[in-house]
C-alpha cells in the first residue's frame, strides 16, 4: 500500500516539477521565475523525503534540510538582486 502511495506521490511530484519548469521558462516576469525556482526546490525537498521512505534510509535527510535553508538564501538573493542590483550593501 505504501509502495503504491509512493508511486503516486512520486508521479505527482514529477509532474509538479514539470509544471514549475514550465513557469520557470514561461516567466513572464523575473519574479515569476524566481518563484518557480523556489517551488522547484521545495518540490525536490519533497522528492528527497519520498526517496528516503522508498529506500528506507535516513541518510538523505540532511540534504533536504540543507536544501530548505539554501533554497531560501538563493531565492532571497535573486529577489534582492532584482530589487537593488546589489545583494550585499
Amino acid at each position, binding site marked *: 500500500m505504501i509502495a503504491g502511495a509512493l508511486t503516486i506521490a512520486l508521479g505527482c511530484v514529477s509532474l509538479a516539477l514539470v509544471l514549475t519548469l514550465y513557469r520557470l521558462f514561461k516567466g513572464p516576469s523575473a519574479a515569476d521565475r*524566481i518563484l518557480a525556482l523556489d517551488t522547484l526546490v521545495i518540490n525536490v525537498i519533497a522528492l528527497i523525503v519520498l526517496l528516503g521512505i522508498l529506500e528506507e534510509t535516513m541518510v538523505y535527510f540532511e540534504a533536504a534540510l540543507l536544501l530548505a535553508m539554501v533554497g531560501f538564501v*538563493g531565492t532571497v538573493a535573486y529577489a534582492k538582486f532584482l530589487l537593488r*542590483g546589489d545583494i550585499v550593501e
Partner: protein
Amino acid sequence: MYLVWLTLLPFIGAMLMPLVRAQGRSLQTLVAAGPAVIGLVMLGTIAPQVMAGEVPALRAAWVPALGLDVSLRVDALGWLFAALILGIGLLIIAYTRFYLSPKDDFARFLALLLLFQGAMLGIALSGNVLLLLIFWELTSLSSFLLIGFKNDKAEGRQGARMALAVTGGGGLALIGGLVLLGQIAGSYELADILARGAMIQASPLYPAALVLILLGCFTKSAQFPFHFWLPHAMAAPTPVSAYLHSATMVKAGVFLLARLWPALAGSELWFALVATTGLVTMVVAAAIALHRHDLKAILAYSTVSHLGLLTMLLGFGTPAAAQVAIFHLINHALFKAALFMNAGIVDHETGTRDIRLLGGLAGLMPITATLGTVAAASMAGLPPFGGFLSKELMLEEVWHTPFLGTQGLLLPASVVIGASLSVAYSLRYLYGLYFGTRPDSFPQAPHDPGIGLWLPPALLVAGTVLVGLFPQTLTKGLVSAAAAATTGGTAPLFKPMLWHGLTPALAMSVIAVAFGTMALWQHRPLQKLWDSLALPDAKMLFERGLAGTIAIARALTDAVHNGALQRQLALLFAAAIALGAWGMAAVPFAAGTRPTLPAPPLAIIAWLMLLAGVIAVCLVQAQRFLSLIYISIIGVVVSLAFVYLSAPDLALTQISVEVVTVLLLLLALNLLPKQPAALSGTGRRLRDAAIGVVGGGAIGFAAYAVMTRAPLDPISAYHWANSKSGGGGTNVVNVTLVDFRAFDTFGEIIVLGIAALAIFALLQPASRGPSGQRLRAWLPDMPRSPEYHPMMFAVAARLLLPLASMIGIYIFLRGHNLPGGGFIAGLVFSIAMLMQYMASGYEWSTQRRRIDEHLMIGLGVLIAAVTGLGSLPFGAPLFTSWFDYFTLPLVGEFELTSAMAFDIGVALTVVGAVMLALKELSHVAQRAEKDEAHDDAPMDIDPAKLRAAPAAAEDVP
C-alpha cells in the same frame, strides 16, 4: 699541464684587464702582452719535439656522457697556428697601444682581444672536436664584441650582428657536422677521428657531416657565397681587422679544413665542394677587391680571395697542395696583417681610407710607404717576397690538378684570372696610396707615425722579405712538419725557390702580372664597367633576407598568437577530443557487460529538466540574470542525482556550494553589463556548438563505457573494509577525505585559502586607477527600489544564524560517521553569515565580525598541518590518524579522533575563505556607492525605533 696553462693564459689575461683598468696604458699593454710572450716561449720550448713529429697532449674527462673531454694536443699544424695567433697577437697589442684614441676604453678592448686570442688558441690546440666547437663559438662571440667595439656607430652594430649571424649560423652547422662526425667515428677525440678517415668517408652520413662542417668553415672563412660579412666586419677598429679578419679568425675555417683533412679530404665530394668554392671565392673576391675604394674593404676582399686560394688548395685533396696551402697561410698572415696595420696608419694619419682621396704619400711618409709597398708586392705575388713563392707553388699545383674530372685549361685559366686580379688590386693599393698624384689636401696632414705604430708591421714585412729570400732555411722545417701533421702522413718534398726554371707556373705568373698591370692601367673603364654591372649587393641581400625573415616571423607570430582566448579554448577542446579519440581508436574496444540500472520515470524527468536547463542557459546566456536563474536548475538536478545514486555527501556539498556560487555570481553581475550585445555570428555559434556536441558525445561515450564495465578490484575495497576499524568512522567518504587521503584535502583547503587570498589581493586596489574611476562614475544600470534591508528578511536572518550554526555544528560532528563533515559545516556557517550580510548590510555585519578572515584561513591551514604533524612524536608518519572512545559521566560514550581536529582546520579555512572572498567582492560595490547617504542600520524600517525617535525628540526641550 702546460697545455692547459697555454690555453688559459689569454683568458687569465682578459680577467686581469679590469683590475688594471685604472693603470696607465703601458702597464695594460704589458699585462695584455704577457700571455702572448709566455705562450710563445712555451711554444718555443716544445718546438723541437713538435717539429720532430711528436704530439704533446693532455686529456682529462669533462663530460663523459657526451664524450666531451678537456683534450689538448699540439702537433705541428696546431703549433703553427698557435704561433701565428700569439705572434701576430703580440704585435697587434703593441700596435693597439698607439692606435686607439685616448677616449676609447683601452682595457676593455684588450680584454676582448685577449678573450679572442684565448678562443683562437683553443681552436688550435683542441684535441676533441666538441672542445674545439666551444672555442669556435667563443671566437664568434668575442669577435662580435670586438667588431661592435665602436657600438655607437650603426655600421659597427650591423657589422657585428651580421658577422655573428653568419659565423654563428655556420657555427651551428659545424656543431651538427662535428657531432655527426663524432658519431660516425665513434669518438670525438681528434686523434681517433683523424685515424678513421676511410671509415668516415664510407659512412652514409659522411655527405651530411661534410656539408655541415663545410658550412661552418666557409662561413668562418668568408667563402663565397658567405663572403659578404667580412668587409662589413671592418667597421671594427683596425687592429681588430688586422688580427681577426686577416691573420687569425677567418683562417680558422681554413685551419679546420686542414685539421680535418685526413678524415674528410680525398673524396670527390670534397674536391667538388671545397676546391670549387675556393676557386670561385678567389676570383670573385679579387674582382670585388679591385673595385673597392675603402682601403680596408680592398684588403678585406683580398683576404677573402686569398682564403679562397687556401681553400682551393686544400680542396685538391693532395698532400702537396695541402703543403702549399700551409705555406701560403704563413705568408698571407705576414703580409696581410702588415697591410692592415699599414692601412690603419694611413687612416690614422690622413683621416681617410678612401683610396681616391689618397695618393703620393711616399714622399710624406716614407717608412709607411716602404712597408706598404713591400707587403703589397708580396700580396701581388711579386718576387722576391714570400707571397711570390707560395703563389708559384700554388700555380704549380693548379697546373697538374685535374678539375672536375678533366685535365683542361679551365682551372689554370680561372686561377690566372684570379691571380691577375690579385696583382691588379695589390698594385692599385700601393700605387694609389704612395705614388700617383698627391691630392691637394688631406683631411689631416700626414706624416710617418711613431715607432710604436710602424714597428709591428715592419717586423711582419721583414718576415715576408726573409721568407722570400730564405724560404728553405726559415720555413721548410715548419711547413713540412705542419703539412705532415695536416695530411697525417709524411710531407712531400718542400722546395720553395725563387727560381724554378721555366715552368708553366712561371708562365702563368708572368701572364698574371701582365694582366694585372694592364687591369690597373685600364682601371677607370673597368671600374665604370663594374659599376654599371649593378651586381647584387650581398649585404643588402642579407639585410633584406633578415628583414624578410623577421617579417615572416612577425606575421607568423601575430597570426598564431593573436591573443584570442576563443582560439586557445577551441584548440584545447579539439585537441582533447582528438587525443581521446586517438587513444580509443588505437586498440580494439570491447563494450561493457555490467548489468545496467533501469531508469525510473522520475529520473527521465530529471534528465529532461537538466537538458532543458542546459539549453536554456545556452540560449539566454546574453540575458545574464536569467541565465543565472536557469543554471540553478542544473545544480538542483545534479544534487538530486547524487541523492538518488547513493552519494549523500556529494549532494550536501553540491547544494551548499551551489548557493555560494550563485551569490558570488550575483555580486559580480551587479557591476557587469546585464545584457550586452552579442559578439559572435551564427557561423561561429554553430562551430562552437559542433565542438560542444562532439566533445559532449565523446565524454558521454567514455562515461558510458566505464559505467557499463565491471570495476577491476578498485582500491576502495580496502577503504571500505578499514574505514571503521582503521579510521574510526563509518562514513567512508569522510574517512577517505580526512584520513586515507587527508593529504588531498590538505591541498584542497590550501587551494581554497589561496583563492581567497588572491581574490583579496585582486580587489584591494580596485578603487584606484582606471578601475577606481570607473567605480566612481558607475551608475546603477537598473531601476532600484529604495529599500536596502527589508525588515522581514533581516529579522529572519537573525533567527536563522544561531539555528544554522547549530545545524552546522551538528553536520560537522556527525561527518565522520554519517554524511557531513568540516567542509559542509563550514559552508553552512558561511551561508548563515552571508545571510546577515545580505539582510543587514556590509558595514553592520563587518563591525560584528570577531575574527579576521585571513587569520581564520591561516589558522585553519595551520591546524590541519599541525594535526598532520601531530603523529610524528608518536613515531608514526605524517597525517597518521588516531581515534579512541571515551566515556564521560552524564554524556556517555563518545569518540575523539585526530581527524576531527583536521576537520576543524578544514572548516575554519572554508569559512575564512568563503567569507573573505564574498565580503571583498561585495565591498567593491560598496566603494562605488560609498558616499550615498544611507545609514548602516541593519534594517530600513524599525517601527519601534521610528516611534521612539519622535518621543525622544519631544523629551529634549
